[in-house]
């Protein structure tokens, strides 16, 4: 099994506070890791360290250079800093996902527009292609941002709480879409909703300053406690305290 990248002994701080301490784990190709943990536990910081946006104070992230570099990581930030009243089209937002490959003096070609339109089509928002962002629902916007993360055909997809703005009617649809994407792309997804994502992820990583990798989609309250990961599980299915795949 080849690994896509390895986080090796990383300590990182955010706003002067040490939020990650001696974190080490390997992510194998096509894994779908659910990153869980309490608020302020360092989940977002971990993603930003992998993205190279935060320099770790100690340790490093090592990419498998044959497959991964910064230009083929797709990123869906948690709270987008974007201003939805901004004069920008859906297609332009999706195209911004190509900027890493194209550089700061990017010219978008007809081929790029085609690629963007294909992603937009796949995400089912083709009819909104020319809509203003301010006219769209939270779920539709989230699809636009997912399109931005996917347009460069990344090898790795980093998602920070993607379910936050998604309306419940679209939620299942959204995760099904991710599952399909996972057939070819490795995914790391931060989420507080352990119950829901356990039906989709292949493994868990509990982040609370330290990190515990749990190589199974099943996880129990006891295990979480053992990991020092104080979050509440809502049990699905018949077995109490155990999160199982939907059955």
């Amino acid at each position: 099994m080849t690994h896509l990248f390895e986080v090796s002994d990383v300590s990182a701080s955010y706003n002067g506070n040490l939020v990650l301490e001696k974190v080490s784990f390997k992510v194998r190709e096509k894994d779908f890791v659910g990153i869980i943990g309490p608020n302020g536990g360092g989940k977002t910081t971990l993603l930003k360290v992998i993205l190279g946006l935060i320099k770790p104070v100690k340790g490093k992230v090592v990419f498998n250079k044959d497959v991964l570099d910064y230009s083929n990581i797709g990123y869906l930030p948690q709270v987008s800093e974007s201003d939805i009243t901004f004069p920008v089209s859906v297609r332009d937002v999706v195209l911004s996902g190509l900027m890493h490959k194209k550089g700061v003096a990017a010219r978008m070609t007809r081929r790029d527009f085609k690629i963007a339109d294909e992603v937009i089509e796949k995400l089912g928002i083709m009819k909104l292609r020319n809509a203003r962002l301010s006219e769209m629902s939270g779920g539709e916007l989230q699809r636009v941002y997912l399109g931005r993360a996917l347009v460069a055909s990344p090898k790795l997809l980093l998602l920070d709480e993607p379910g936050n703005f998604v309306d419940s009617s679209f939620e299942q649809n959204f995760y099904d879409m991710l599952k399909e994407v996972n057939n070819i792309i490795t995914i790391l997804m931060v989420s507080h909703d352990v119950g829901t994502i356990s039906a989709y992820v292949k493994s868990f990583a509990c982040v609370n300053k330290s990190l515990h990798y749990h190589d199974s989609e099943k996880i129990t309250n006891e295990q979480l406690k053992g990991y020092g990961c104080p979050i509440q599980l809502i049990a699905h299915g018949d077995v109490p305290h155990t999160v199982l795949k939907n059955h």
Partner: protein
Amino acid sequence: MGIELFEYDYLLRSVLAAILGSITAGIAGTYIVSRRLVFLSGGITHASFGGIGLGYFLGLNPVIGAALFGMASAAGIEYLSGRQEVKEDSAIGFLWAFGMALGIIFIYLTPGYTPDLMSYLFGSILTITNSDLIALAILSVVLIIFFLFYYRTILYISFDEGFARTFSRRVTFFKYLLIVLVSLVIVMNIRIAGVVLVLSLLTIPPNIAILFTGSYYKMIIVSVVIGLVGTLMGLAASWYLDIPTGATVIFTLVLLWVLSRIIVNIGRKNRRRRLLLNQ
């Protein structure tokens, strides 16, 4: 002969200033309006008055002093807002008043009479000089080339800076460059509308443009055109009515904005009525 005409015909010069001013204000204005940097730009504008005063005091061209103060304050505010130690709006407020205070002190200390102080406060497109025009022309060309070349980067930094940082390590550099360009646009347009009025030259056209288009580059083009229409109409009106040009231009632009709002609202109502009828 042609040169002579250019040199003596102040009306031709003001028309040229209107064209170049609209180009620069339309481009920089779209950037500051869409990134919500209007208040910051107000700070830069008033800080540059300190430079105007310094220019008088040292016997230099006040525009050069204003440009130096404008650029320095732009970079200073951008720097302060990057760290979280000072509240950005407070920093802008300080700079705003500090620049004006400095300007007034310098002008007071300058021996003799400062005849065209009023033209820096309220603008005077009719007294614009050839060197002002050349500076405006160079600035227009630089802005056009810069925005053509880095259009996508500027668009995406403005729209979502956090995401832009994932594809470029030079986001901060671009932000500095852009705000310094904005400060130069403001300073060069002070000759047209004055410290007190210049900001509206940058902010009203994009605010009209955004009523009609949801695309960034169309917003720039529409802003330039609206700025030009407003400035030329204001210029003509002030000429015939013999009232101050800067103020008339701003008045015209505000009028255009009100008109546009009414047109857009009527359009929306009609569309809704049509939709209801079709059901």
